[in-house]
């Protein structure tokens, strides 16, 4: 066999790839990190809240060094009808420390992460699209980019939600529209002072706000608004498999959110500085593919490691953790000089023990719950509006007891359904008991080469 040019090739300089490259380079391995963007992060977009627990394990000084926007200290969740918003707000100085989350903008953030990889000794190549995996003797042996072939002992696929490379090599199957959501977002410039004033924030502190209901016109999904330092990120996410529900187009959903009476005054006078779209993962635990292959590992979004909990989308922290664990697995495999699937199996096992797959398993039934409970996006915002109206409108007519107002508001939905949905909803986000079972039977475990679909050409 030809001498391998690199110890590891990592495709994709997002959070997963750059983290893996940093950890590998620090251990002295010869690694190259390749991204198709002009710079790392130039193809990437998220809502914008990074939970930093995983980042801190690899970059202990990130608070001083990383381009973070604002520390989230205020959480809002709103159920929207066309005219109303029923909102829960939680503001607390306790939203910090180890569980701290920050708003981030991906172009600068991902560039910083890639810079860390480079500083650790990784070669970072941008502006190169990897076209295919190089397959040799039934194992992944490198990558193909244009006319060029590059070989390596192992390839880490951190190429994002679609992972064309894994698909083209037959490592994962055809995409299921119910496993993906489309996100669209605007970045609106308002100025640092204006944002702090309008959202009632101390300097450097930020607000994370999610919306259900009117903005997606009842489609499964929701809206989000994150305050950055001097801009806000505002957008929607909706399940691709649910696009048939009504004829409202995705770009229009963003406009609906911007027009909403609770949002419009907060962004008034702002200037659009960017509009973009990106895919998000929606399938949860059951959509996680086989993660370990002969000579290759899947990381981050490419590995299906994304989580929609209904009140927050998470993927960056899972990507970073998977990057670190993948790198540590590769370092051990490098010591053995064995990059077979069996030697790399530890990756899946360690992910299963980590928060990554534990959290995915915990929310396992949530995607299905949302699919089955359209009311979350239609009837329940209306229920909240009716209940609030009967509580807060005073017009001289005889007041109703609160219990009766609530009963009246709930009547269109029906009590049976209400209780059933509540019960199922709680069950869907309270799956601890089933975690062990879910992990035990999961498909991402290595099942040897016999189970690998396709692969050789």
């Amino acid at each position, binding site marked *: 066999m030809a001498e391998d040019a690199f110890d590891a090739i990592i495709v994709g300089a997002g959070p997963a790839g750059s983290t893996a490259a940093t950890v590998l380079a620090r251990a002295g391995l010869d690694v190259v990190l390749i991204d198709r963007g002009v710079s790392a992060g130039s193809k990437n*977009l998220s809502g914008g809240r990074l939970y930093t627990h995983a980042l801190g394990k690899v970059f202990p000084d990130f608070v001083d060094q990383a381009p973070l926007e604002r520390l989230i200290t205020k959480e809002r969740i709103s159920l929207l009808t066309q005219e109303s918003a029923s909102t829960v707000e939680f503001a607390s100085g306790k939203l910090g420390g180890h569980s701290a989350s920050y708003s981030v903008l991906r*172009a600068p953030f*991902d560039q910083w992460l890639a810079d860390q990889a480079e500083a650790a000794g990784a070669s970072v190549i*941008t502006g190169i699209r990897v076209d295919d995996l190089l397959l040799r003797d039934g194992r992944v042996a490198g990558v193909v980019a244009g006319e060029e072939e590059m070989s390596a002992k192992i390839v880490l696929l951190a190429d994002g939600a679609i992972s064309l490379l894994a698909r083209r090599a037959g490592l994962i199957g055809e*995409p299921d529209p119910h496993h993906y959501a489309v996100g669209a977002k605007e970045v609106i410039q308002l100025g640092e002072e204006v944002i702090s004033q309008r959202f009632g924030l101390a300097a450097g502190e930020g607000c994370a706000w999610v919306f259900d209901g009117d903005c997606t016109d009842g489609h499964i999904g929701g809206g989000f608004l994150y305050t950055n330092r001097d801009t806000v990120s505002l957008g929607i996410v909706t399940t691709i498999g649910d696009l048939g529900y009504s004829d409202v187009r995705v770009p229009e959903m963003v406009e609906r959110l911007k027009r909403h009476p609770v949002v419009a005054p907060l962004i008034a006078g702002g200037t659009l*500085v960017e509009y973009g779209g990106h895919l998000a993962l929606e399938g949860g635990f059951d959509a996680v593919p086989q993660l370990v292959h002969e000579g290759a590992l899947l990381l981050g979004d490419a590995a299906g490691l994304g989580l929609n909990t209904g009140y927050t989308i998470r993927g960056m922290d899972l990507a970073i953790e998977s990057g670190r664990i993948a790198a540590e697995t590769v370092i051990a495999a490098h010591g053995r000089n064995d990059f077979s699937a069996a030697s790399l199996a530890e990756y899946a096992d360690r992910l299963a023990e980590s928060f990554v797959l534990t959290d995915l398993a915990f929310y396992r039934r949530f995607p299905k719950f949302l699919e089955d409970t359209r009311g979350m996006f239609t009837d329940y915002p209306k229920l909240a509006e009716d209940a609030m109206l009967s509580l807060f409108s005073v017009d001289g007519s005889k007041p109703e007891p609160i219990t009766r107002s609530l009963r009246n508001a709930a009547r269109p939905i029906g009590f049976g359904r209400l209780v059933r949905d509540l019960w199922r909803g709680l069950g869907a986000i309270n799956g601890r008991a089933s975690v062990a079972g879910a992990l035990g039977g999961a498909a991402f475990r290595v099942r040897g080469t016999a189970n690998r679909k396709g692969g050789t050409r």
Partner: protein
Amino acid sequence: MSLEAKLAVDRFAVDEESAHIRLADTSDVPRETLELLVRGCPAGLYRLNDDGSLDFDYAGCFECGTCYVLAHGTALAAWHFPRGEMGIEYRRG
């Protein structure tokens, strides 16, 4: 603000030499699929004509993959990322 105006704010390096997404002959593709493309594309690049034919322009594409998930192998003859350095360039993300 129109979608065109929004896209004009973004930075794109349009690859004039090759289209990264190409439509197939859509005459046999169910209209429903074509409507989903129109609805789902965040950049609004798909347009359905009165005669049922589909128009598409790859300039302005976010490379998000929504149309790939919806119609790769049916309405789309080819879907790839643009060549390196080409396409959308987010400065915020």
